[in-house]
Structure formats: C-alpha cells, structure tokens
C-alpha cells in the first residue's frame, strides 16, 4: 500500500465517521461538528494528493486547503449563529423537534 493510499483510506474513514455523526446525532451543533470532520477529511485528501499526486503544481493542493479552511470557518460561524437564533425561538436545538416545515 503506497503512502498515498494510506492517507486516502484514513481520510475516507474520517469522512465516513463525520457523515455518520451528521446523519445520526440529534443535536444540531454536533451535526455541524460532523460536517467539520468531513471537511477535515477533505483537507487531508487534498494535501496527500498534493504531496504524492505527482502533479506539476504541488502548491495547488495546499492553496486549496487554505481556502477550504477559510470557508469552513465562515460556514461554521454562520451555522452556529443560525442555531442560536433557532434556539431563541424554539428553545431547543434538537433537530427532531424542528419539524414545522413538515409536509
């Protein structure tokens, strides 16, 4: 197993765990945390490819990761603000109970 594959597998597993958490946890904040895990996995993937991918521009991967980190931070901030706003209105952050848009 090449180093690249190793990193990739780890990233895949991390991604799966993050997804599992996002899909199963009731607390909205933990869903966001899961999403962060997924993004971290993506970052790992990108850097691994940047290192071992054999591309002509090795810096591209790292730059991409930079942007991902920035966007993730922004997204987390906004998401948490949303959750707080939701909490103010419904006094809960359990996703089960936020089903007013039910069809």
């Amino acid at each position: 197993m090449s180093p690249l594959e190793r990193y990739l597998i780890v990233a895949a597993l991390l991604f799966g765990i993050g997804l599992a958490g996002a899909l199963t946890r009731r607390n909205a904040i933990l869903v966001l945390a899961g999403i962060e895990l997924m993004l971290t996995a993506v970052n790992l993937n990108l850097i691994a490819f940047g290192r071992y991918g054999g591309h002509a521009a090795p810096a591209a991967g790292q730059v991409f990761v930079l942007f991902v980190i920035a966007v993730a931070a922004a997204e987390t901030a906004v998401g948490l603000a949303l959750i707080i706003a939701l909490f103010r209105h419904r006094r809960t952050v359990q996703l089960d109970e936020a089903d007013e848009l039910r069809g």
Partner: protein
Amino acid sequence: MNGLASQLWLVPALPLLAAGVLACLPRGARRLAAGLAIGALAVSLVLSLAALAATWAAPGPEGFRAVVNFPWLVWGEHTLRLGWVLDPLAAAMLAMVSLVGLLIFIYSVGYMAGDENFTRFFCFLSLFAGAMLAVVMANSLVLLFIAWELVGLASYLLIGFWYQKPAAAAAAKKAFLTTRVGDLGLFAGMLWLYAATGTVVFYDGGRGCLESAAVSTLAGRTVTAGLTWSAVISLLVLLGAAGKSGQFPLHVWLPDAMEGPTPVSALIHAATMVAAGVFLVARMFPLFAAAPPGATGTPPALQAVAWLGAGTAVFAALIAVAQTDIKRILAYSTVSQLGYMFLGLGVGGVAVGMFHLLTHACFKALLFLGAGSVIHGCHGEQDIRRLGGLWRAQPITFATYAVGMMALAGVPLLFSGFWSKEEILHAALGWPVSRGPFWLGLTGALLTAFYMTRQMVLVFLGPYRGGAAAGAHAAARPHESPPVMTVPLVLLAVGAVVLGFFGTPAWPALQAYLDPAHAAHLAPDLRRLFSAEVLKLMALSTAVVLSGLALGWWLYGRRPVTDPAAPDALELVQPGLFRLLREKFRVDEFYAATVVRWHAGWAALGDLLDRWCWGGLVWLVQGLALGLAWVSRLVDELAVNGGFDAACARLVRAGRRVAGLSTGRLPSYLRGVAAGALALGLLLLWGGCR
C-alpha cells in the same frame, strides 16, 4: 270605370281589416268596435253603390263586365291566378249584402247591448261581411272557395257565439260539418274544372273557364250516362251550393243554426250566406247551361237544379207548418224560399233566380229582425205558444212584420215577394221538361201563406199568453224595442215594397240588368202587364195565396188561443200528419242513426288505434328511453364516478405518502442528500469515469 274596378278589392278588404283590428280590442271598447265595424261596412256600401251605378249606366249588348286578374301562385309553368270581376250580378249582390249588412250591424248595436261579448260579436260580423263580399266579387274559383270557407268559418263562430250553451256549440258544429259535405263536392268540381280547362279564372279575356272556348270544350266530352263534363262539374258545384243553401238533404243545419243571436240569423241565414249557394249557381250558370252542339232539350244540370229546388220548397214549407219556435218557422221558410230560388235558376235563368234572391233578402231580413224585436221585447221568449197580443205592445214591430209576412206570402201587387214569385211561376209554367215544378211551386205558395198566417195570428193577435210561465221576469210586460232596432225594420219594410217595382213584367229593369237576354224589354210598358198569360197566372197565384191566408185564419184566427199548453188547431184536425211535420220528417233522427253512428264507429276505431297502436309505440319508446337512461346512470355512477373517485382517492393516498417524505427534519434530509450523492458517485464510477 277601370279606376273603380281596380279599387274594388277595398270592398271586402275594409271589413276584413276592421275584423282584424277588432280582434285585438279589449272587451270594453264597445263604442270603438261598433263604430269601426259599421264605418268599414258603410264605406264598402258607398263603393258598392258606386259600382252598381256604374254598371247600371253602362250596359252593352253583352252586358258590362270589368275584370282584374293577377297571378298568385307560380310553380313550374303553372300559375294560379286570382282576381275579381265587376258585372251586374256582382254589383247587385255587393249592394244588397253591404246594405242589408249595414242595417243589421246597426240593429245589433241595440240587440246585443246587454251582452258582454259585444266586441267579439262585431269582430265576427265584420269577418263575415268581408268574406261574403269577397265571395260575391271573386273572379277565380279558388278565391271564391277561400272566401266560401271563410264565410263558413264566420257562420260557425257566430252560431256558436254563446258557446257555453251546449245546444249552440252542437249547432255550430253541425252547421260546419254539414256544409263541409257540400264543400267536398265544390272542391271536387273545382279540381275537375282545373284539370279539364287549365284555369280556374272565370273571365280572362277569352281564356276563362266560363267563356265560350272552355265551356264548349267541357260540353263536348262525356262520361257515363251520357253526361257531359260540364254537367258533371255543374252537379258537383250544385252539391256545394246545396250544402251552403240548406237544400234537401243537407238542410238539417239551418234550423239548428237559430241557436245563434237573431241578427246572425237575419244576416247569415236569411239574407246573405245561404244565398251564396244560389249565387254560386248563378255565377257558374254558363257551365250549367252548356250543351253539346246540336243537342236539344234542357241540360241535365239545370233540370237537377229545378227539381231539387221545387222539392225542397214544398218539403220545408210542410215542416214549417208545425213548428212552434218563432225563429224555426222562419228558418224552414228560408229553406223553402231558397228552394224557390233554385227553381227559378233552373227554369228561368239567372235573372229570375236572382230577382227572388234580392227580394227575399230584404223581406226575410226584415222578418228575422222583427222576430228579434219580439224576442227582445218579450225578454227572450221564443215559443209562439207563449206569445200573443203583441200588436198593442209592439206596434212598429207588428206593422213592419206584417209587411214582411205579406211580401213572403206573395200578397199581390204591392209586395216584392209577389212579383219575384210570379217570375218563377211564369218560367216554371213554360218549362219544356215538365209541369211538375210548377204545381210544386203553387203548393209551396199555399203552404207559405198558411204557415205565415198561423205565425202572425199566434204571435201578434189574441191575448198575451206569456205571463203564466217564467217567474219575475215574465211579469214585466212586453215592450217596444228602441229606435236603433226599429228604424232598420222600417227601412227594410220600405225596401220590401219598393224593390218589387223594379221587376214587374211592365218594367223588368232588374231582369234586364242581370241577364242581357232580357235587355230588349227595358222600357216600361204597362201593356205587357195586361197580356193574357200574365193576367191568368197572376189571378191563379192570387187565388192560391188568398186561400192559404183564409185557411190559416179559419184554423187559428177564429177562436183566439188563450192557453199556451193547448194543442195546435191543426193537431186536433190531423194529429198524425201534424206530429210527422213537427218532427221534421225525422230526417235528423235518420242521420243520427246512420251517418252519425257510422262516424262514431270510425271515431271509436281511431281511438282504439291511437290508444293501443300509437300509444303502445309511445310506451315502447318511453321504455327504451328509460332503459337507456337507467343504463347510462349506472355507467355514470359506477364506472365514471366510481372510477374517478377511486383514482382520486389513490392519488390522494399516493400524495400523502409522498408528503410523508418531507418530514421537516433535517437529519432525514441529510440522509437523502447522502444517498443521492452516493448514487451519483456510483453512476460516475461505473459509468466509465475511472
């Protein structure tokens, strides 16, 4: 002259128009109704008198004749033409009808004053007047037939004017149906005439069916029994005339027609409509008189006319002897006098028959109006057994009625009826075929004098027998009628006297006017009056009339009758004969047993057919329709509704299930997204993006 002739259509058109307007008026517009009707007929009278004067002043060797024809119906190469003719015959009839009609209209204003359907009465009267005038001036057999039927319709409407009375309604129906039988003959004759000559116009500049070309064609061809076509057509037309004029055996409707108001009886069933039959024969006389070239003797059609007339004259006079209703006596008298007119036409020609028609119109209208005055003055009493002694209470009526009675009976010299009957008897005496009609005519004259004397005595002389019967109303004494009724009586009485002087042998002005063959005698010449044969005949007929009067007086006048329930004097002498006469020779009963029963059978068959066959068909169709409707409903409810409902329910359920997907919960949505992304990735991977 041409101007007058071309405007002649106004004469019938104005009363018809008035009738149309009157039909739309409300019941209360009496003054307007009477005014319109009388006004229209007055204008027609003026025009008719103008036409009469014009034709009188312009005689020619052939007599005056102005004709206006126009095409009416065109199909293919055939044209049906209508038109009107102005000749002495038409002018005389126009004047008579409009004059007598006008007098009766005025009389009706008084007679019908108490009736609530005054306006409707005048509407029908106007309709009748217009139609009768059209009959008289028609130059086309089709137009004549149309107007003929209109006259019949007006008669039906007027006889049945008081339609709430079952007797009146039945009488109207009887009149219509009986004349219809005659009209069939007229129609058949018209069709044959059209088929044979190709035209129904009488006078058409040489092409008319009464002009020499057509007549000789018809006279030239024969059918069975050696009868020429002209004779057969004439006999068919005679059937129609006999129906309308109430000759035996189609006379049964005329006495029943007395159910109508008295002005109606006077106008229609004495003076004008019944005279239409006589007029028809007079108008179509060239056809009746047509004979094949080289033939001798009287044409069979004319012989039939003469015998029919003579027989009916005596037959009806006999029945009149035993009647007790004042109007019925006059009705049978009318039938009898019409018989005289037919006799006159048959033996003497147009002038003889028409002279009696004109005088009869005058004095018969007078008699009927007088009878109406009696009925009006005695508060509706019509039975002569309950009248009497009215000469004191109704003097004007009595006097005018006496004039009329003497004219009818043929009292000599002063009264028109004498002169016109003389002409008929004179012609009958000289008839080459047989003396039979002459003797029948004399017998009829005797009977006429007899029954009129009977009527006069019982109605006007002796004590008044009417108080005993009805309740409060009869207690009121009989009174004279208002002037609006008595003035026409007086005018007609004058006419009944004066008219005769236009037709004496000394000065046969009317005859010369009506029949160009007499034109040579136009200048008055008293010597003709004193010729041997004329004097002999006058003496004979005077003797007959006087003996009739005497017989009547001897039976009825010697001992005044006081009891209304007492048997008739004749009945005491000859009970069997009297009963037969009173029952009108049982002709009505005979018809009821045969024709009516036969017809009832057909009606029953028709009813059966209608109820079971057509009714059954209808029932079948109904069942079919209902069945189809039931099936349709079933299909609609089960298949359409049910299917639709089921589909909708399924749709709703599916929708609900799909709606279950939108839980509103984020995790499930995320799950969906993950699944979708997975699927997409798989697709890409194994789609060949390796």
